[in-house]
């Protein structure tokens, strides 16, 4: 029996298994909830890490669920993109829930905390499932689990804002899933396959017969995944949902969940649809247009926000624009930048949300104006926030710089310096809304006596410190992750 060969299944199943175990644990062994959750995610993380090494040394491989080979069974495809995204999801997800193990005690009623871990594990499992599956229907199922779990971790905090935001999110998510399923049906109709690889083989022939059908399917997929990934005109649900949720939920939603849909979209666009189809309609240009608008308008909305979490949420809209910019430019560097930004933004944005959560935990303040002088009373979260802000602006030696570098280079590679300018302008806008917070935190004197903030437990500080360390590490030494991103991009572009 060789465990390591089953890691593709186990990486999904172990969190899933413990997710179902969690209600039982919460009933009888409450103190076990946190260690078991952490253990399950650590297992997934290590599995992802192991698979990264495996893939880097021996190349992509597949796993057949139930020993049924495709096209009959569900195939998990462990390629560069999949392990990269799985590593991001499990790694950042681990730090977030570690932080959450203390923060949630503060934000949630004690009887629902066990359920929170259930939902969180389901979410992690479904996200990993989305990125590694090679089957469109399986992907749909994971998308739905992911949608419900992410609504769940918002509505679990039973304030009326959360409930309303969760409902809005749920309705739009279902709309997105519906569009996705319809697209899947259309693709199945013309190809007779659900497996991406077989579908991709059959599609060129099908395209000659039913080009319109495929275009509709492509449009539905972009809309469906775009709604979930909050691509610009479809982002309406995001600011409420991400800002009202408990801080660990915001971090995971903004940092990971929306990226996973982007990964799914990348896989479908590059690996399934024939490249000639993109010639029939200016799909990539539309994506570029949407992402440009997302980048600019998201940042502009962020500038006028007063609530720190709402500001971060709008910033996510802009940042997901970067990822799609990388997708739309269709050059190697840009794609590397886009994929890398998935990872970098996952770290930066979760860190920012967790830091914001720490401010709220310590002082109860959510308004930007109330955060004056917080740098002196809560140094570690403020420094983390500061590093995150610099990374968002794209100051060198932070990881944000590296992804911007690649995106900008990619835009120049295809001879479209306009998009380089877009990236730069948005960096400036990022500076306009992030830096004043940092400045206020450190340099402004407040007249009124600030009550001593609540002391943060180690479980909250260590993940923040680790994330900030990661942001710097991957800014100074990006080759740690670049190797796999490069290979992912090359695989996607068929180089």
């Amino acid at each position, binding site marked *: 029996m060789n465990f390591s060969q089953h890691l593709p299944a186990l990486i999904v199943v172990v969190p899933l298994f413990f997710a179902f175990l969690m209600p039982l644990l919460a009933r009888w062994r409450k103190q076990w909830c946190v260690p078991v959750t952490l253990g399950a995610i650590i297992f997934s993380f290590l599995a992802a890490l192991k698979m990264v090494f495996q893939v880097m040394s021996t190349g992509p491989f597949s796993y057949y669920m139930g020993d049924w080979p495709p096209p009959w069974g569900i195939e998990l495809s462990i390629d560069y993109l999949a392990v990269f995204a799985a590593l991001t999801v499990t790694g950042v997800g681990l730090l977030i829930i570690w932080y959450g193990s203390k923060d949630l005690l503060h934000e949630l009623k004690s009887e629902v905390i066990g359920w929170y871990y259930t939902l969180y594990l389901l979410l992690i499992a479904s996200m990993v499932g989305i990125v590694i599956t090679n089957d469109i229907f399986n992907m749909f199922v994971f998308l739905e689990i992911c949608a*419900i779990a992410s609504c769940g971790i918002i509505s679990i905090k039973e304030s009326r804002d959360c409930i309303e935001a969760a409902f809005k999110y749920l309705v739009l998510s279902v709309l997105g899933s519906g569009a996705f399923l319809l697209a899947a049906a259309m693709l199945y109709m013309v190809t007779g396959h659900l497996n991406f690889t077989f579908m991709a083989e059959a599609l060129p022939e099908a395209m000659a017969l039913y080009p319109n059908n495929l275009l509709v399917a492509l449009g539905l997929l972009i809309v469906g995944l775009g709604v979930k990934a909050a691509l610009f005109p479809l982002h309406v649900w995001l600011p409420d949902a991400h800002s009202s949720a408990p801080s660990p939920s915001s971090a995971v939603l903004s940092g990971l969940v929306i990226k996973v849909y982007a990964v799914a979209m990348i896989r479908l666009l590059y690996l399934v649809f024939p490249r000639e189809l993109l010639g029939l309609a200016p799909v990539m240009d539309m994506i570029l247009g949407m992402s440009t608008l997302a980048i600019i308008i998201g940042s502009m909305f962020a500038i006028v926000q007063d609530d720190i979490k709402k500001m971060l949420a709008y910033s996510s809209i802009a940042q997901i624009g970067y990822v799609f910019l990388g997708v739309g430019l269709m050059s190697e560097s840009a794609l590397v930048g886009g994929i890398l930004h998935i990872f970098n933004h996952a770290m930066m944005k979760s860190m920012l949300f967790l830091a914001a959560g720490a401010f709220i935990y310590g002082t109860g303040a959510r308004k930007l104006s109330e955060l004056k002088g917080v740098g002196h009373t809560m140094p570690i979260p403020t420094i983390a926030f500061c590093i995150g802000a610099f990374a968002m602006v794209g100051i060198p030696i932070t990881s944000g710089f590296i992804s911007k570098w690649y995106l900008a280079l990619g835009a120049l590679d295809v001879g479209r310096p306009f998009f380089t300018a877009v990236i730069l302008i948005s960096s400036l806008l990022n500076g306009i809304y992030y830096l004043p917070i940092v400045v206020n935190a450190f340099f402004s004197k407040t007249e009124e006596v600030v009550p001593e903030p609540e002391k943060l437990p180690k479980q909250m500080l260590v993940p923040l410190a680790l994330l900030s360390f990661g942001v710097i590490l991957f800014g100074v030494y990006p080759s740690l992750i670049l190797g796999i991103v490069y290979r992912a991009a090359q695989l996607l572009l068929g180089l």
Partner: protein
Amino acid sequence: MTITEIVLRLHANSYYFFAIILFIIGFHTMLTHNNLIKKVIGMNIMDMAIFLFFVAIGYVRGGRSPILEPGVNHTFINPLPSALILTGIVVAVSVTAYALSLIVKLYKHYGTIDAEEIMRIRGGGSL
């Protein structure tokens, strides 16, 4: 293309045609109705349209349900879409249940299930 041709084509693709109409009805209900329960109903209609569409793909004219009996040979319909849609239905049920429970909570907080009313209360509230 003459009218007859269009009608004939629609007839040939009637499953898809009606699925799309149903989809649009559901979509319309979901987006335009203020009543949250009606939104959920619209959501379900939309889902059902997709399910019907999916199942229709797998239908083979004259086919029977794919239950193997020794010694009997029939044309079977394609069982895969039906099996998939079973999963889809489960998902739809759970989403509906979840949406309804959210509506219950919303009603508790706002005393109404009218989206516009809720927006009004929110706007006028302390937010």
